[in-house]
């Protein structure tokens, strides 16, 4: 059998993200693969140490453009822990609302990318059309489609008016209908199933060994969701399911993500209905007392982790960011082994890579 080495990336039609792969083939089958990261490494962790706590909100929001709000929120939570302040309940609800909207937009975006990679351009177009509804809501809430800049240390800076609330509830109904329809299409689309079933397999044991998080882990049967495992306001007051599957292939990941999208729509509704009245932010001092804080939250791709240490000045002494894509990247050689060359793009899009997150 002839052996071939195929380089993929950092710019490649198969891969939308700047990441370089060397895929070793024997005939049609992948035997081995190596990966080179760092194409979008900007040095954000070091830059954070050179800027003030307040400037850093805008910086960490630009770690990733897809889950920008959850980055800023997790960072702000860590600084609030250091300051020992609690955000007002209304601010916590508004943050969670944007988190859930971001999950909807991220998962629909991912479905589109997967569909495009398996050649179903129609589903790509539909998914991205429906995603615009979520972006519209976020734009109404914050003024930005992708980066929101609503988080400040001590709360949020934009509010929902009662008229907006009604409008958003109406848009959520549309979104609910569309996502349900999309889930129906995905479930009955045989060509999508034949391309994704049994591809990119990860067992529960592998997921545990490689410390994988998020939808990829939940599709292999690992029951972990930071919203439930480390509950904060408002998730401790809301009831929601964590969808789980056990097959561990790209198909199971599709189902997990689509079901999560539906749950997120439902959560958005509950959050809007139960949102308490009150102030949006509390005043936070500029100087942060010395100490260390850890903040975890559930980003669309899984557990997001921030570690912030302050030495008492107005700049942090250390900010460590662990994004959920990093452990998923580690499993790629395992997932790629044995698949055909045509399935490589399915595997790569199946884990929902965000290299901007992973490289920082």
């Amino acid at each position: 059998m002839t052996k071939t080495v195929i380089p993929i990336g950092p710019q490649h039609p198969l891969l939308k993200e700047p990441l370089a792969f060397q895929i070793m083939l024997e005939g049609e089958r992948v035997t081995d693969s190596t990966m080179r990261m760092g194409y979008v490494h900007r040095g954000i962790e070091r830059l954070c140490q050179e800027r003030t706590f307040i400037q850093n909100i805008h910086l960490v929001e630009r770690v990733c453009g897809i889950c920008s709000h959850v980055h800023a929120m997790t960072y702000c939570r860590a600084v609030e822990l250091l300051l020992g302040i609690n955000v007002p309940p209304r601010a916590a609800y508004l943050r969670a609302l944007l988190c859930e909207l971001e999950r909807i937009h991220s998962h629909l975006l991912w479905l589109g990318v997967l569909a495009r990679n398996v050649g179903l351009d129609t589903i790509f177009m539909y998914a991205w059309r429906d995603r615009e509804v979520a972006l519209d809501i976020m734009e109404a809430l914050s003024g930005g489609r992708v980066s929101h800049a609503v988080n400040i240390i001590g709360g949020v800076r934009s509010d929902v008016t009662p008229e907006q609330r009604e409008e958003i509830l109406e848009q959520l109904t549309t979104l609910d209908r569309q996502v349900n329809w999309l889930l129906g299409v995905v479930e009955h689309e045989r060509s999508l199933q034949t391309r994704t079933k049994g591809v990119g397999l990860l067992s529960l044991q592998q997921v545990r060994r490689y410390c994988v998080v998020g939808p990829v882990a939940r599709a292999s049967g690992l029951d972990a969701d930071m919203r439930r495992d480390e509950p904060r306001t408002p998730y401790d007051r809301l009831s929601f399911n964590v969808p789980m599957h056990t097959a561990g292939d790209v198909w199971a990941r599709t189902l997990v993500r689509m079901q999560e999208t539906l749950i997120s729509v439902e959560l958005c509704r509950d959050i809007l209905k139960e949102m308490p009245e009150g102030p949006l932010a509390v005043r936070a001092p500029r100087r942060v007392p010395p100490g260390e804080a850890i903040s975890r939250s559930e980003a669309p791709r899984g557990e997001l982790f921030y570690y912030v240490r302050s030495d008492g000045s107005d700049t942090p002494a250390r900010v460590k960011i662990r994004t959920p894509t990093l452990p998923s990247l580690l499993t790629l050689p395992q997932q790629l082994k044995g698949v055909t060359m045509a399935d490589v793009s399915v595997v790569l899009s199946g884990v929902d890579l965000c290299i901007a997150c992973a490289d920082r």
Partner: protein
Amino acid sequence: MSDTSRLNATYDRIVCALAGLCLSAETRIKSAPGDELVIRLPVENLRAAVAVLVNQLGVTHLTTITGEDLTPELTLKYHFWQERGFTLEVELPGEAPVVATIVDLVPGAALYEREVYGMFGIAVEGHPDLQPLLLPDGWEGPPPLRKEGDRD
């Protein structure tokens, strides 16, 4: 400022299991439902401690490894998760720091150890593929997160 009354059952189990290996255990890092446990270890006990966690307590999830330059020494924090987050902390000398790998115990540590190697120049002994994770090809100059060097 060890506040034993606040350690819940999980923390108690971890502290008991690692009692012979650690220098100190305290709930130091601020986190949401109460402060997080930090167990300080001598660097030569790290592998033994992780082995206890993995084999006896069934800990599987390593969130990440945080390196820090607290001139003159360096620290590494291994953030684990089992029901609650907790951290193992080791201290390394600033000159020629070396730490043993835990990849064979927790395979998910592979990328984090490579990152620590690139960003702090901490040699990870026994790592199967030790090269910087994120630095560009032909990076010259000190590891970017070390405090000596070109910092202005």
